């Protein structure tokens, strides 16, 4: 007989037994190893020694950096830059929460020529790259910037010689510690871009030794060539990205041994993980989820305002059919645009939908950036709005379509919810808003083709300079999409862009915002806050106040009383937590 049934039976039983034994043995081993981890432990010197000794100095971040990041080469990556900021230093940096000016980093000081076209940086002496004895010098800076231009990757638009945001015409090494940049045109964006990850200073010798066919780009996904507080240990795509401390960091001792980005896409995993202490830092939680996390003893919430403006726009040339059957372009009338601005209930959006993750904003320049105008506060005045509609001849109202993306804005407020609030507000002045949730790519295509009647979106910083906001909102990518043009404002922002004196520049930007508030196509809704959930052991919170990156090199972990108290009782709060995790799974995916 080819096949004996008893064999099948026996093998099934055997398989079951083996699996059960493996699970039980493995389980006990696993539980043992989990309750009694034997990590490498470092005592941190310089910070309250007793509290940190015996604590594993490893920080775990639960997000999608390890799976979604495209590259760890500063010249190839424009998103998920947090690890790059920790591996590389730049000439200058920010002193958050003020992003309106830069402060020294690799450069101790710099001189700007009176015409604003030449910047001469004086480098700090005696800095070496991690793992080599190569000096961080002017030649390395020149090499790094020219490398970005040559690779021409995603972030190269910031400093390309032809048509980049900053037109760098030449980079000259004056002596090993002095470097001069010459610009083709005055640009307030130059220094902020020098603080951006794209301007990371890299070790030319190390890159040359691993150049390959792509300027070392592939090699840089497994290694790093910077002078920063950490260096890349390994990157298992989709799984985790590990940085190890640079033992000789020039700005001071690095207290952590390791920083690990673990791939955790699911909000529920993030919440459970940070509460159980498996994750130390998580973000991207919605306003509904935050109360669940903040109620846990010891958990710390850090709120930073993001350099982002949430707005909705009105297309001046969009044909709209009126109730009497005629087709008109109501938004080409300044009074209709103002009526819409006056009809919106900003408080409801910021305080009710935003639930503490948003702050009100009047101009398009967010708080923290040069040119922010706190006096510009949007007001709701429905009576005046109705008058304006009548004056403009649209008393009978009309119907428009507002495009909104599925999902939520970065602070976690759902686009559709905001759309519905606007719909309710504008109904009071006779405008019927149909909120149409449209997938991102399709929405952008319609918007870019200047065919969207109304769009609700946000504008996120690329670097901290008002030019990154003034041009799109007044005379660039965004304003063109809604067919808005205003010569007075255009000349104001061009003047601002070329102004060397930062105080004068800020005044010009404020002026442009005021004019745009009175005349423009935008209803500015709010500025989102980025809320980061920090585990109970991680200190200090001041290392989290930067919205471009976190200062991992200043962080350390302190001992904490065991959290393995009896948690088996399931109470009402648990049901809420569970329900919230189901709902967030639905909305996130």
């Amino acid at each position: 007989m080819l096949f004996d049934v008893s064999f099948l039976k026996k093998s099934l039983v055997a398989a079951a037994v083996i699996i059960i034994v493996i699970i039980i043995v493995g389980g006990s081993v696993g539980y043992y190893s989990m309750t009694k981890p034997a990590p490498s432990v470092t005592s941190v010197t310089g910070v309250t020694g007793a509290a940190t000794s015996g604590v594993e100095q490893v920080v775990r971040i639960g997000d999608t950096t390890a799976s979604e990041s495209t590259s760890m080469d500063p010249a190839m990556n424009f998103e998920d830059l947090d690890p790059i900021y920790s591996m590389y230093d730049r000439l200058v940096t920010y002193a958050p929460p003020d992003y309106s000016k830069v402060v020294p980093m690799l450069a101790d000081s710099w001189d700007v020529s009176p015409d604003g076209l030449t910047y001469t940086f004086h480098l700090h002496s005696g800095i070496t790259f991690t793992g080599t004895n190569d000096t961080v010098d002017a030649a390395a800076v020149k090499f790094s910037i020219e490398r970005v231009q040559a690779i021409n990757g995603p972030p190269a638009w910031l400093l390309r010689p032809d048509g980049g945001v900053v037109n760098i015409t030449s980079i000259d090494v004056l002596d090993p510690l002095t470097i001069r940049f010459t610009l083709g045109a005055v640009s307030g964006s130059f220094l902020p871009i020098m603080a951006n990850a794209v301007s990371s200073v890299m070790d030319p010798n190390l890159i040359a030794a691993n150049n390959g066919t792509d300027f070392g780009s592939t090699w840089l996904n497994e290694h790093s060539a910077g002078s920063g507080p950490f260096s890349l240990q390994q990157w298992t795509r989709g799984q985790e990205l590990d940085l190890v401390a640079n033992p000789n960091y020039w700005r001071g001792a690095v207290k952590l041994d390791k920083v690990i980005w673990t791939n955790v896409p699911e909000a529920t995993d993030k919440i459970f993980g940070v509460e159980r202490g498996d994750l130390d830092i998580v973000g991207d939680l919605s306003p509904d989820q935050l109360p669940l996390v903040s109620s846990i003893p010891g958990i710390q919430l850090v709120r930073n305002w993001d350099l982002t403006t949430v707005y909705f726009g009105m297309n001046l040339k969009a044909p709209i059919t009126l109730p009497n059957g005629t087709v008109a372009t109501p938004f080409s009338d300044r009074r209709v645009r103002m009526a819409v601005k006056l009809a919106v209930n900003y408080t409801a959006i910021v305080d009710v939908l935003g639930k503490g993750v948003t702050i009100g904003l009047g101009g398009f320049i967010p708080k923290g950036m040069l040119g922010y105008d706190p006096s510009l506060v949007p007001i709701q005045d429905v009576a005046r709005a109705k008058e304006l509609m009548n004056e403009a001849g649209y008393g009978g109202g009309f119907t428009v379509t507002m495009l909104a993306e599925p999902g939520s804005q970065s602070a976690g407020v759902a686009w559709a919810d905001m759309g519905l609030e606007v719909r309710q507000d504008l109904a009071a002045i006779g405008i019927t808003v149909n909120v149409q949730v449209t997938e991102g790519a399709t929405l952008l295509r319609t918007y870019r083709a200047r065919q969207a009647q109304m769009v609700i979106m946000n504008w996120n910083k690329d670097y901290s300079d008002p030019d990154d906001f003034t041009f799109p909102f007044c005379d660039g990518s965004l304003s063109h999409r809604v067919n808005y043009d205003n010569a007075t404002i255009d000349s104001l922002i061009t003047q601002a862009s070329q102004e060397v004196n930062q105080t004068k520049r800020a005044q010009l930007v404020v002026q442009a915002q005021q004019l745009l508030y009175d005349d423009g196509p935008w209803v500015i809704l709010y500025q989102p806050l980025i809320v980061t959930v920090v585990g109970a052991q991680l200190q200090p919170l001041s290392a989290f106040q930067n919205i471009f990156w976190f200062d991992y090199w200043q962080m350390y972990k302190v001992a904490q009383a065991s959290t393995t108290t009896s948690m088996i009782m399931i109470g009402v709060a648990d049901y809420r937590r569970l329900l919230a995790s189901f709902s967030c799974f639905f909305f996130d995916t």
Partner: protein
Amino acid sequence: MALLGYVLRRVTLLIPVIIGVSTLTFIITRLIPANPIIAFLGEFARPAQVLALEQKWGLDRPLYVQYFRYMDGLAHGDLGISIHTQRPVLADLESFFPATVELSTAALLFSIVFGMPLGILSATHRNKAPDHAARVFALSGVSIPVFWLGLLLLFVVYYKLGGPGFGRIDPSIAPPTRITGLYVVDSILTSNWQALGSSLVHLVMPAFVLGYATTAVISRQVRASMLEVLSQDYIRSARAHGLSERVVIYKHALRNAMIPVTTVIGLSYGSLLSGAVLTETIFAWPGIGLYLVNSIYALDFPSITGTSILIAMIYVAANLVVDLAYAYLDPRIRLG
């Protein structure tokens, strides 16, 4: 020899399947009115940058040239370079696929080990309490959404009880040295018992969640075909000969009932391997589902096509194994 010939013929049939799948995926991804270069470079890409990348990736060529280039690469085992990760697609699949294989295999083992006895129990206790209990279990298995079960288990086992949570291994334990990419196998090969323990307990929950529906289907299939076999004359004869019920059930009925069950098992393995997206998301499991989702978001044509080819090959292979198992289970079936 006939068997070898049969296997060879079936493997040769893979070629038209791969050509078909890659052609279809190629056409579908190119029909999407979106530009992967813009997706990669971002909104501010300058025309010169776009042009340079178009040339580098060959996207400036006519579609048929792109197609033949791709098929030429495919013939040489080259799936192209991923737009998103900038690595060969094959290397990406190598790093993501083992996680899925491990999870799906565990899920299938779970389904067989629990599904078959449950089905037998149902059939031998038809319309009695064990059968009703098994029916409820099966109905829950096919009705409970994967994400709901996954979140519920994570909540109870991980959050409330402090058991193993998401991920392939405990965060404080280093993964085993990579040999096959399967954590369980690698830990055994490198005698890393701590990693073995942790990766095994981390497998239990996702494997249960992923395999629950399959368990239900297998148990129902076993029950149905067992009932059919048990009503056959030869079973009656066997009983009439005074054979013990154990021998009748296991020796005579089960084997004959196995053929449809094998089909279900084989096809389930295919669908487990390719359909673990939700389970992988909930358990932060870095497998092929996660890779595919990221690729789709990034409009990464080469990765999407490569993954589709892999999934098609899995189905074909699973079918082949099922057909081979038929001949093994029923000597009357001749392959060839």
